[in-house]
Every structure is written in C-alpha cells, then in structure tokens.
C-alpha cells in the first residue's frame, strides 16, 4: 500500500501506459472520488457548491482547449465562439423541439465541432501567430452571426431562456442537484482525455506539436490530425457552452466573449500546457481567483480603504492579478501548477530515503 519505491521497474508496455501506475495513486483516486461524492455535497454550503459547479464547467472547457493548444500546439483565441455555438445549438433544440439534455449536450458539441473544423481548415497553411489571429477572427464572426441572425439568437437581446435539465423526471435546479450533473461531465472529460492521449491519435497530436514537419515525414497526415484536434477540442468547448447554459438557465452570446477565450488560455497556461491535471488545476485557479480577491478585499480591505474604494478596487485588482499571474507563470514556472504539483509529489514519492 503506502510504500516507497526504489526505482522504475516496469517490464511491460501495459504497465508503462497505465492510467494509475502506482498503488498509491489508486488509493488517492479513491479518496478523491469519496471526497467529491460525499464530502463536497454534504459539507459545502450552497455558495461554495456554486463555485465548485463553475470550476467543473471550466474543467471541461480547459481540457478541451488543452487538447488543441497544449497537446497539438495550435493556438486558439476563439474558444469562446465555439462555446456560444454549442450553447445556442442546444438552446434552440431544447426550446423548439423539447430535446432532453442527453441529446442536447452532444448535439451542441457536434455543432461546435463542425464549426471548429471549418475554422481549423486554414491551419493547414498557417500556423503560430497567423492561426491565433484567424481564430480570433472566427470569434468575432461567430459572435456577429449569432447576434444578427434572429433565427439563431431568438430575437430579443439575443438570449434564449432554457428550462433546467431533467434526469428521470427530476428537475435539476439547485446547486446541489446540478453538482452531480456537472461532476459527471467533468469526470467524463478527464477520463476520456487521459485515454485519448495514450492512443494513436493522442500521440500523433503530440508529434505534431513537437515538430510538425518531422511528424509528416514519419507518416502522420498532419492536416487530418490537426482537424481532429480542432474537432475534438471544439466539441469539448461546445459541451462547456451547453453546460454553462444549463447552469445559467439562459443562452447569451455575451457570456462567451473574447475575455472567455483568453480566460481559458490563461487556465491552461497557469495550469501547465499539455497536461490534463494542469488544465484541472488551472480551471480551479482562474475560476476561484476573482471570488477570492473579492472576499479578501471585502473582509480585510476595510483596514486600508473605504468601502467605496473597495468596490472600484475589486474588478481592477482582479484584472491586474489575472494578467500579472499569467506573466509571472510564463517567466518563472512555464510548466505551471502541474509542474509544482509534480515537484512536490516526486519529493514525497521517495521520502524519507530519497537518493
């Protein structure tokens, strides 16, 4: 059970590729599962659960973006656009046809994947900064289209009210009810991505990121795999959009602006590019940061500032912290929170007799 190792003793490929290579990891995963299944819903207040729900939604989106940017090396500043595609597709299906959630969520994802493929087509010819700008452009074009085509946006203020999802006749409305719903999708995204990345497709993604020309020479069809990456990534983004729409009870394109795209990029940068765990850390960090700043200042800021100052201080200080942390992590710890976690873990892995 809890024993330390003295080296790497893997004798088969299966052992090398196992999702949970150490016995300790199995216990840890079990512990985390028990924590999220029982402790969180029973102990956390409604306010905390709302925050956890937002983190769970962000986890899906951040992992999706990480597949494209972290694993395949294609920068996208347009993920907010893909999310809005998913959100509006699902909202229209739900409101017009009364589609249940288990159809609406994949439908939103598939539509976003389709748009993602279209946006990804230029990636054959352009890369790096050009691709970043092209995806930025797609964000504007998608937002404009949704806002101006009333058939999609539902007319007034481009927002569509959506009824809560119902599972076996249960309406999921309170944070507690939504929590399990969202937890399911977050866990699904984590496990699916971990498995995807040890498959042929995942390894092709990584080869393209590391050196695309060399990847082409060893027989990877770059164009096809880049489009796969765009499709899978924007599928996740679309699902995120649907989940967020369910969470808010309304689909609105203003919830998926350029700031959201940048937020998700910040999540995977701060979490650590090219790692699922990093995306989870980053999603939690970036989602909690504004709330933490607000709570800290409203509770302790009174010593230095008046309440009026604090009200203007909070949003601006959040911006400064947010931007500053991105720069800080880029310069000081480019591999992000995931690297910090691995350093800690490796230290204790052989503790107390490290060699």
């Amino acid at each position, binding site marked *: 059970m809890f024993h330390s190792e003295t080296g790497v003793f893997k004798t088969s490929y299966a052992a090398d590729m196992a999702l949970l290579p150490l016995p300790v990891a199995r216990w840890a995963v079990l512990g985390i599962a028990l924590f999220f299944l029982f402790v969180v819903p029973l102990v956390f207040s409604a306010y905390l659960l709302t925050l956890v729900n937002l983190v769970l939604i962000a986890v899906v989106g951040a992992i999706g973006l990480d597949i494209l940017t972290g694993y395949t090396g294609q920068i996208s500043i347009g993920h907010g656009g893909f999310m809005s595609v998913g959100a509006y597709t699902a909202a229209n299906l739900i409101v017009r046809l009364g589609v249940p959630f288990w159809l609406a969520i994949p439908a939103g994802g598939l539509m976003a994947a389709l748009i993602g493929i279209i946006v990804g087509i*230029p990636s054959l010819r352009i890369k790096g900064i050009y691709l*970043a700008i092209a995806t930025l452009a797609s964000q504007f074009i998608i937002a404009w289209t949704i806002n101006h085509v009333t058939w999609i946006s539902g007319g007034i203020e481009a927002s569509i009210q959506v009824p809560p999802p119902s599972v076996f006749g249960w309406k999921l409305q309170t944070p507690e009810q939504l929590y399990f719903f969202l937890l399911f999708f977050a866990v699904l995204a984590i496990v699916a991505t971990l498995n995807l990345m040890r498959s042929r497709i995942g390894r092709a993604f990584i080869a393209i990121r590391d050196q695309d020309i060399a990847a082409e020479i060893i027989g990877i069809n770059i164009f096809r795999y880049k489009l796969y990456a765009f499709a899978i990534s924007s599928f996740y983004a679309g699902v995120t959009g649907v989940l967020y729409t369910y969470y808010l009870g309304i689909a609105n394109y203003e919830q998926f602006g350029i700031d959201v795209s940048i937020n998700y990029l910040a999540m995977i940068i701060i979490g650590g590019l090219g790692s699922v765990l990093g995306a989870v850390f980053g999603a939690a960090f970036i989602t909690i940061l504004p709330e933490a700043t607000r709570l800290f200042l409203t509770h302790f800021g009174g010593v230095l500032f008046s309440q009026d100052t604090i009200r203007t201080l909070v949003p601006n200080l959040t*911006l400064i912290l*947010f931007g500053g942390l*991105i720069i800080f992590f*880029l*310069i000081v710890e*480019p591999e992000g929170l995931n690297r910090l976690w691995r350093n800690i873990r490796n230290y204790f892995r052989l503790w107390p007799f490290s060699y």
Partner: protein
Amino acid sequence: MLDLPWRFIAILLANGLLVGSMYALVALGFVLIYKATDAINFAQGEFVMFAGFLAAGATHLAGFPWWISALLAVLGMVVFAFGLERVVLRPLLGRPIIAVIMATLGLGFVLRGVATLAFGGGTQTIPLPVGDEPVLLGPLILPPIQLVGAGVSLAFLCGFGWFFLKSRIGVAMRAVADSQQVAMAMGINVRRYFALAWALAGVVSALGGVLWGAMLGVDNQLALVGLKVFPVMILGGLDSILGAVVGGLIVGVVESLSAGFLDPLVGGGTKDFIPYLLMIAVLMVRPEGIFGRRRIERV
C-alpha cells in the same frame, strides 16, 4: 452610367482613408516590434489606451497645456516600453510563440486595471486645439480631428520609412530583423536594438493614443482600436511598414463602405466584422499579406 449615390460614396471613401491612415499609425507600432524582435504585441490596443490616459491625466490632473501632455505621454510610453522589454519580454526570448502571445495578453489586462485605478473609470477628453467645425472640401464634409490625425499619421509613417531606409540606426534595426545571428556577427548589439524597437513602438502608441483619444475620448473602450490592427497587419504583411499603410487604408475604406451600404441591409455592426472576413480570405490565399515576406521553414 450607373445610378449610384456618388457624393455619398466619396464621403465614405474620404472618411475611410482618413481613419485608415490612423489605423496605420497604430499598426506601425505592431510592425516595428514584429520586424525587429519577432514578438507579437497583443497589447497594442492597451498601449494606445494607456498613452491616451497618460495624456488626458496630465491635462486634467496636472493642468498642463496639450503639447506638454502629449510630450509626457510619449516620454512615459518610452520609459514603460523600455522597462517592459527588460522585465517581461527578455526572459521569454526563444520560447514558443504562445508564451509571447499570452504574456502580451496578460499585459493588456494589467494595463486596463492599472489605467482605471490610476485615472478613474469615466471617459476623459484630450483637448487638442482643433475646432469642431467640419471642413468642407468640394462635396466632402470632413471632421477636422480626422484630418489632423491622418496628417500626423502620414507624416510619421513617412518619417519612419525614411528612418528605416536611410538612417544608421534604422539600417541596423533592419539587419537585426533580417537575421539576429548575422547582425550579432557584424557587431550590432542586438539586445539594444530590441529595446529600441519597443521604445519606438512606445512613441508610436503614444501618438496613436493622443490622436485616437482626442477623437473618441479616453476610456477602456479605446483599447478596442487594437483589435482593428490585426486585419490591417495581415492584409499588409506583418513585417512591412508600407504594408501597414496600405493595409490601414484598405481596412479604413472597407469599414467605411460596409458601414454605409451593408449596415442598413443587415441591421448594423458590419464595421466590426467585415475587415475580419477580408482578413480570413487573405489568410487563405496569401498568408504573408500584400507586402510581407514569405517565410520558408526548414526542419
């Protein structure tokens, strides 16, 4: 002869050209940095906004006349850009492109927060000594601030063109842009020219901030000018000053025409996205832009 509203078109064209030359000025800051350092400044719009705030702040808080405020904005931006290059950009040399993109995006957030905290959230004015009376030029009605803006922009674009073609420093900067290693071998201090490129971009942003700020008013929205820079750059070519000018004029005219003719048809807002459509078309056909240099990649 087609029965088109010629006077309307002429006004739209003139307007587009004037605004376009001001876009070119903002884009110039972007080109300078990309040319010399291969870095992409996604915070160009925030640079412009911050410079606008500096100028407006100097006028309103300290009560300086407009030309001292403008000078202060230029100086402030030069110092800021120098520091930025040293603290943020230099450690990121040689890192993947997403690092620089994210660093400048993060910088944009910081600048927005700092500007609002330091100068307040309201819209401020930069009182340039330019009248409000529209200038009548034949059939055209032109706002004077746009004329001044376009004039200053074109003067500076010509100035920078001369600087890069003829002056010793400009030639050295082109050498650095061409190949950093060869430039180093020829005894050029590459790092110094990186810093210089950022400082020049600071100057250009300050000018852009004063002109755009005088035209639109200074607040957080001013940073949105930076978003217009991307179509301009891609059209003209990321590493060409002439490209910035031509791209700026094209985007200005296209925007103005689409606002005049398409907006009534589809209900507004085409101005914000037609340039991007045009840009995507260019990316598909000729990614390096009109005047850009094609890059050949080797393993």
